[in-house]
Structure formats: C-alpha cells, structure tokens
C-alpha cells in the first residue's frame, strides 16, 4: 500500500474544502438549519406528534441524512470530475497508486467532510428542537456508513459524468426526490398501503428509518434490515468503482 499517496490525496482534498469554507461548510449548515426553524419551530408546533416524538425533533434525523446524502454525492463527484475535466488527472493515473488507494483518498476525504457537516448540523439542531440520542453508537455507525457509501456513489458519478449537466443530474433528479420521498418529513406508516409498499423500494427509506431509530427508538422498518440495505448498497458501489478502474472506464483511453 502506498499510504503516503493516500494521505497526500486526502490532505489535498481536505485543503480544497478548507479553501471554500463558506460554500462547502457554512452553506449546507445554514440551509439545513432553516428547515429546523421553519418546520420544527414554526410550523412544527401545529403538527401533532409522530410515534410519540414532537414534529420538530422527528424531522431532524431525516434532514441530517438528506444533507449528508447530497453533500457526499456532490462533493465526491466534483472531487474526481474536476481533475478529469481539467486534465490534471493525468498525474493520478501516472502515479504508482492502485485504484483502491485512489478511492480511499478521495472518498475518505469526502466522507470526512460529510461527517463534520453532520455533527455541525446536529449541534445546530439542538438549539432549535429538543433532541435525544438513545443509541449513540448506532447513530455514529449510520452516520459513518452513509457518508462513506454515498461519497463512493458520488465518486462513481464523477467518473461517469462527461459534462457538468450529467454531474448534476443524478443528485438533482434521483437523490433529492428519493430523500424527500424517503420519510424525512413523515413516517411512512401515514401513507396508504399501496404507497407504503412502493416506498420500500426507495433505499433512502432504510437509511432514514435506521438513523431515526438511533435517536428515538422508533422506526418504519427493522433496524437490522436498514443496516443490511446500506451495507448492500456500499458493496455494490465498491464493485462498480473497482470495475471502473480495472477497465479504465472514462479515465483511460
């Protein structure tokens, strides 16, 4: 293993985040916090409790997940797309590093950033709504697993994308709708039975449900199933990334 190369990529990516602190840290924290203010504190007081949890508190895990998903995907996608776009990727490809090492460097940095954001948003949320965390370790595990998995997913999008439009299309057209419909704002038990079944095909449901369980001990689907679902998605992404590097897909001619 070329650990030094991994560390070098990781640090360069973190430095990139550091250079754009406003856009990459402050913006997502503020925009997510606006949801707490509007839906939690303002409108939330007029909405009845769900599963015994006040509405303001109920939506926090879903919102954190939504933010982490979006940030992981877009940050990791840009991280590898940009060098590809500007041509500087030649240096990575000509270096004595394996595909695996490149993935660890880029995805590790994107996931770290998502984790930091997640913690910041949770801390901000605690100002606006009463939060309790029943299973802190499970919460952390979901946070880490989601950050890593969706950073990996974003990395794949970044390699696949040929232009900026494609780069944005997956986060906008797939990730956002799936998170909105994934039970961020409601328990899927309020849906008619048919739509409940349809919803179970949405992978984000499992993430949000599991994450919310780690806070309040209530969930739409079994926590074990949630874990298996996200692990499965992680392995699928890993396999795709491995295949991409092995074949040089959209990276080498």
């Amino acid at each position: 293993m070329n650990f030094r190369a991994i560390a070098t990529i990781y640090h360069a990516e973190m430095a990139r985040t550091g250079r754009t602190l406003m856009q990459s840290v402050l913006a997502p924290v503020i925009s997510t916090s606006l949801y707490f203010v509007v839906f939690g504190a303002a409108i939330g007081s007029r909405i009845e409790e769900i599963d015994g949890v006040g509405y303001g508190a109920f939506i926090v895990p879903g919102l954190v997940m939504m933010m982490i998903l979006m940030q992981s995907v877009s940050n990791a996608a840009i991280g590898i797309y940009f060098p590809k776009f500007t041509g500087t990727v030649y240096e990575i490809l000509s270096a004595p590093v394996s595909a695996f090492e490149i993935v660890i460097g880029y995805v590790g940095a994107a996931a770290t950033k998502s984790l930091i954001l997640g913690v910041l948003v949770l801390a901000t949320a605690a100002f606006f709504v009463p939060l309790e965390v029943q299973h802190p370790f499970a919460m952390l595990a979901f946070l880490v697993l989601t950050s890593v998995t969706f950073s990996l997913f974003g990395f794949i999008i970044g390699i696949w994308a040929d232009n900026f439009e494609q780069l944005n299309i997956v986060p906008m057209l797939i990730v956002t709708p799936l998170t909105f419909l994934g039970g961020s704002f409601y328990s899927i038990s309020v849906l008619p039975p048919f739509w409940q079944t349809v919803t179970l095909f949405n992978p984000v449901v499992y993430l949000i449900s599991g994450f919310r369980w780690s806070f309040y001990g209530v969930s739409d689907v079994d926590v074990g199933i949630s874990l298996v679902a996200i692990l499965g998605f992680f392995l699928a992404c890993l396999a795709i990334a491995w295949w991409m590097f092995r074949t040089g897909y959209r990276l080498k001619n």
Partner: protein
Amino acid sequence: MSSIISISGLSKTYQGGFTALKSVDLEIGKGEIFALLGPNGAGKTTMIGIICGLVTPTTGTVTVDGHDILRDFRQTRSRIGLVPQEMSIDMFGSVKAAVSFSRGLFGKAPDPAYVEQVLKDLSLWDKKDSEIRALSGGMKRRVMIAKALAHEPDILFLDEPTAGVDVELRQSMWQVIGRLRERGVTIILTTHYIEEAEQMADRVGVINKGEIVVVEETGALMHKMGQKRLTLQLAEPLTALPEALKADGLELAADGCALHFDYDTQAERTGITTLLARLNEAGLSVRDLETSQSSLEEIFVGLVGGKA
C-alpha cells in the same frame, strides 16, 4: 549502452477504431536523451501515454528497467516523471504545495531541500508561495516540470516541452535538461522541430502514422535531413542556364527569374561560394536570396519513400 525502456510489438487502436500505433519496437538507452520526432497525429503522445499509464495498450509489451508496465506498475511508474503536452495544472494552491503534492503522490517522504533545489533549478524559488493561477503561462509550464521531477525520477518524459515557450525559457529548459542528463536521468522528448532534436538529442526516432520510420544517432540523421535549397532572385530573367554556370543541383526556375540550388548543409563543401563567384564572373546580378529547409513532412515522404 544498456536499455532502460524496451518496447516491443506495441500497438494501440482507440475506441473509435483508429489505429494510432502500429506494432512499434523501440529501445531507449539508459541516460540518453532521445527525441521522438514526428508530425501532428503521428502517435507520439499515444506512445508516451501507454508507457506512463494513461492509455491502455492494445497489444505488445513495454518494460521499464526490466519491469512490465502493467504488472509491475508501481515499480515502473515510480521511476518515471511526465510533463504532458497539454497545460493541465491545478490553478489553486501554491507552487510549493503543488510540487509537494506530486512528491507525496509518488510515495516519497517529504524532502524540503530537494524540492528547494528543483524550484531553484527552474527559477521558481521566488515564486514558491505564489498561487499557480497568478503565474504566467511559461512559469506554469515550469511548475509542471517541477512536479514531474518532484519524486526524483530516473526517466523524464517531456511531451513538446518547447511549445508556446519563449526563447529565454527554451534556453533555461535546455540547461535544466542538460543538468538532468549529467545526473544520469534518461530523457525522452517529443518535438516537431528538427533543429530542436539536433541541438539536444543523442538519438532521434522519427515516427509517422504510428510507425517508427527510422531511429538514428542524431549526427547521422542530420546528414540525411541536411538538404537545403538556396533560391536566388535574378535582376534580369534568363532564357537558359549559361554553360559556365552548369553545376550539380543548380536549375533555372520555369519563369527564368530565379535560380534554385540544392545543397547539403552537412557536406564538407556546400558549393555556395563557388556558385556565387561564378555568378559574378558571368555578370549576373542577384536581387534577393533565401534558403529553405525541406519541411518535416517532405523529409518523412523522403524517408518512407526511400525505404519502400
């Protein structure tokens, strides 16, 4: 001379079906400066890309210092530094950070003294803390060279190092290359210009349409390529070439207004002096004169044609 890069049967067909390299065999000697000379689209960048890991070969093998470029890519790539043809450099961050990044990426422990030396060699030391986007184009190119040298490679690829570079920078680049050669670094550079190959290289490989046409010691090749044409514009048109002037390589232009004289720059005697003396004797006055070298393309045609 033991060879450091061995290329055998290397070919590349791109996805669209275009064959950019056709079964190339080539040996690069340890410590030499090798110039790869060829017109646009000849396959120079493709060949370099394969050796450095940017392009996957279709058939054939390449070994670097005895290691296969695909199987032992860590071994081969850690020995190679690449300065690509296109300007591709991250515009953000400082010069020093960019060079340190390259060193780390190649798995080398930080060595500020070495990095300092590289930057000084390339006259970049006083710009070490500048943002790269604030540098001039020539300086950015030098930063790319510094990045390629950051991990102390044994082999340096320079893909058209002098494209878009002014005379001064070109000179300092030659100096850097000269110093690297003294240290035993093998250098492979590509160029469109014969003079450039002549000035620097120990050996020259001419590539055309994906095939190596000739590989030769620079001196020997220059001899082959040394044909030049002297054109003399006459003050008064001639109807025929006077007897007294008749000589090898001299002919009258169709309109009678000019004389063309083909000569060999590498020959002991070019015959120019004699020609001018005879013109004088014959009482012909010359209005203007120019010399021209056969273009690279013409030379390729000549070389390829000569072989067929």
